[in-house]
């Protein structure tokens, strides 16, 4: 279960409204992740959250064949995806909704949310 705190609440709960909320700087308007209290680009402390399209590209991936985390039964795909809005904005996530062996670098994916009690975990699936 993700740890929800003041910084990460928007990321983990935005899915309740179907929105992927990413930290954004109010001064330079760039996105950054993980959420923090200071912009890593211009160091402004004025930070907010912004809904992004949820479109992304798989930058790298691995099919995990060993169970390390309870609730995750292998095989499953751990991936690094780059959000469409900003080329240096990447998330560690899972690609779901397809055969794990079908996932590949460059694959176009889109966000979906998986509700786990009161959080909505952003995951990605191939674009239909």
């Amino acid at each position, binding site marked *: 279960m993700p740890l929800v705190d003041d910084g990460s609440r928007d990321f983990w709960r935005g899915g309740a409204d179907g929105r992927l909320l990413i930290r954004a700087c109010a001064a330079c308007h760039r996105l950054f992740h993980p959420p923090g209290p200071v912009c890593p680009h211009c160091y402004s402390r004025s930070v907010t959250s912004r809904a992004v399209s949820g479109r992304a590209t798989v930058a790298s991936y691995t099919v995990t064949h060993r169970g390390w985390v309870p609730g995750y039964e292998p095989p499953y795909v751990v991936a690094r995806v780059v959000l469409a809005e900003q080329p240096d904005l990447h998330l560690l996530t899972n690609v779901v909704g397809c055969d794990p062996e079908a996932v590949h*670098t460059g694959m176009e994916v889109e966000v979906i949310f998986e509700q786990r009690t009161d959080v909505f975990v952003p995951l990605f699936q191939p674009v239909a």
Partner: protein
Amino acid sequence: MTIDRQAVERQAIVSGIGRSATGRRLNRPALDLTLDACLAAIADAGLTPRDIDGLTSWPDQAVPFGFSGPRVSDLHSLLRLDLSWILGCGDGANVTGILGIAAHAVATGLARHVLVYRTVTESTAQGTGRRPAVMSQMPAPWRTTYGVGSPAQLAALWARHHFDRYGTTREQLAWVALNDRRNAADNPDAIFRDPMTLDDYLTTRMISNPLCLLDCDVPADGAFAFVISHADHRHDTERPVFFEAVGGGRPMTSSWEFWPDLDVMAAMKAADQLWSRTTLRPTDVDLAYLYDGFSIFVLYWLEALGFCARGESGPFIEGGTRIARDGDLPLNTSGGQLSEGRYLGFGHAYEAFLQLRNQAGPRQVTDTQIALVTGGGGPLAQAFLFTNDR
């Protein structure tokens, strides 16, 4: 690039080395192993504990599953060391960095003889069951929420990048493990010594593709200790090994999961600093000990250090001729962490010192003067050049 011939670490030597019993499931307390290694290193340096005035170790904090040894404060008190310098290094990413920190402590006169040690009891802690990865025991919601409980999965993302971008293959990557195993055959202290073929490698079960079980290092028990002394003591030392240069770096983030660019590791920054502090070049290196916690790290280190061009580490090691003990660049001659055991870089350093002291027995490489030792992968990186020729 300005070359600083006065790199301060050149005033430091490795005056003594010590190793406890090492291997699998020794069922011995970490403190017991630590004392064996430390007292051996001090005696090897021709010193007694009364001479030791500096002390450091890593990670110096309670980490579960046998990852950490005794705290420096505990060892200090037990041995009643009269210290002028002590550092329990709690930074989670230090790995082998304390070797350089100790060198700088003696070089700058804060201590004369620093005892450095590293102890693990991961194999005993694992028992007969599966050992949960250390990483899975740390609060890491950005990882565990996505089923990431081991650095193997994150290392696999770098491996996949290297495969996709440069055309690297499993048949090439295999040579990190195959070369380690070939060397381990001549190391009675190595955990895995049975011959391994390319076919064995290719048919071993996947852990997190493209990394299979044989791409991941082996949990082990053991302690290693070194005495780092000021170079003024070189004539009191039977077989001094000299620090030539150190390098380190951690650009952008300490996080594995949010590392900004899979095309690089912190290794690139550490290598740049290393070469900026010496006139030696990659072609001068006689022996390379490149951190193999996961096999893919070795490929990035080879490229970072300039042993081959970017993206060409796969062809560089393929076939294993170049990196064999009689090749151009003998690599991980003790069997490395994939076959000798996971000693977090200290096994590599110990072997480098043995070789430079001409004490490596059946696996001794002839005519060796310069050894390069690295620690870490991903966001973690330290690099060292050692020489017996000064």
